[in-house]
């Protein structure tokens, strides 16, 4: 069982970080899109579309989203079970979440700083890359931390539908064979992963807090 725990732990970590990574690199740009379009009269419609899209995806429960995504997952990954299929599902669920978190941080940027940037006559691209992202870096790291911790829970759920990892291990041993020690170990490892992420996230975020 030790070997299995080992493997499951690796799978879980792989799923969390890979989907977390993908959700970050797609979610933050989506958040930028939300923020920028919300402040422009011209792109009002774009905001409406992005906003609706994010809301819809965020209101579908994860387990149902996985079901809805089955055809797409099959097409993209080739299979609907295993860690890669799970990463796909997790990423799709996490992108809107990350987008909302980052949009929220962008909205908290003090108005004065936006004014400062505006009065320098910078382009939108310059604004995003040289002001918006650097000024909210510490918060974005905190957001990524929240995202990853959420993904810990989601990977466990994904485990119930064949994703592998600690979630699946706990279900296989606990739910089907009543081996509660396996469940306990899984839970302990999941807690340790969460704690580790939170600790490092705080550390890292504080490094950029000015």
């Amino acid at each position, binding site marked *: 069982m030790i070997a299995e725990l080992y493997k499951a732990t690796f799978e879980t970590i792989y799923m969390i970080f890979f989907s977390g990574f993908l959700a970050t690199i797609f979610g933050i740009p989506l958040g930028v899109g939300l923020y920028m379009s919300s402040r422009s009269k011209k792109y009002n419609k774009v905001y409406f579309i992005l906003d609706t899209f994010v809301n819809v995806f965020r209101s579908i429960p994860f387990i149902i989203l996985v079901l809805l995504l089955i055809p797409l997952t099959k097409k993209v990954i080739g299979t609907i079970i295993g860690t890669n299929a799970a990463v796909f599902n997790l990423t799709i669920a996490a992108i809107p979440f990350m987008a909302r978190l980052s949009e929220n941080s962008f909205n908290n940027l003090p108005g*004065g*700083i936006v*004014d*400062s940037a505006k*009065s*320098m*006559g910078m382009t939108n691209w310059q604004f995003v890359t040289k002001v918006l992202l*650097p*000024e909210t870096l510490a918060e974005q790291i905190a957001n990524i931390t929240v995202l990853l911790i959420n993904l810990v829970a989601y990977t466990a759920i994904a485990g119930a539908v064949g994703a592998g990892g600690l979630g699946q291990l706990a279900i296989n041993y606990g739910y089907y064979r009543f081996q509660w020690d396996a469940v306990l170990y899984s839970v302990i490892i999941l807690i340790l992963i969460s704690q580790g992420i939170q600790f490092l996230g705080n550390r890292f975020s504080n490094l950029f807090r*000015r």
Partner: protein
Amino acid sequence: MKEIIRAEDLVLSYGKGNNRRIILDHINFSLSEGQIFGIVGLSGAGKTSLLRTFNLLNTPDSGKIVFDGIEITSLDDVKLREIRKKIGVVFQNFNLFRSKTVIENIAFPLILDGTSKKEAFKKVSAIAEELGLSHRLNAYPSQLSGGEQQRVAIARALITDPKLILLDEPTSSLDPLTTKKILNLVLEINERHNVTFIVVTHEMEVVKRICDSVAFLKFGKIDFLGSTHEFFIKVENGDIEDFGEKIEEEILPELIAEFDKNHIFRVIFWGENTKKPVLWETAKKFDIKINILYGKIEKFKLGNYGSLIIEVEGKGIEEFVEELRNSVYSIEPLRIF
């Protein structure tokens, strides 16, 4: 002189529907290049709001702003950006970038425009030296005192040699010595590069030392618009309500009470005539005795401003006053009783 900025019938309001409040009410003025223009008024009068409309951080409800011959109120984003680069701004609460060090903050406008980091930093060093910031170049804004932040904001506005610089309370958190330094720097830049400044301020000292002309804002309307010395005459007369020292607050009422009030005059000297002994000469001519009850002379940007209250005794008072009128800025009976 060439006009640099003009406001035509500017109206600005905040809020919508029932919450709509008119903040700027039909503002009109024109500034020629190289002027230093003061905007004064009580807190909440709309000074910051007015300043923010000059580079369209606030969009006016109606009216026009013409900058350097271009009506900027109707420009598209791309053209507006180019205009904004020519207008430096120092905000009331500085608005420095928190993630950038002092040197990066100051150099930022140059870097945006494609100047190399090395060149930009070199230029920063020079201006930081002038503003006494050299030892803080690698600090972050959160590690600076209010006055230091203010100086960084000023340096950042000056670095691109803009045509117009908007200053919102630029000396509000500075000590008298640093205030003096900053004001001198403003004067120097104004003279050397013919840069126009619009300065919002509460401080009389700032107006006196650097402003060519002044607008006094009251409830969103321009209550006074004119040259600095005319503004001060009004302030001292008490014509500008609730602002600055009225002259009656500075003189001693007991002293005045002793004299015939028809014989008390207020004389104002402005510019060249402050340097000549006109009072003495004219008094001698009409054999008038003069008793000085109050007097001061101050250095304004455009010249010396003298304010004198005298009591006169003798036979030809009327003739004396008429003659003196020709050689001083103004003379009139003291009106405060």
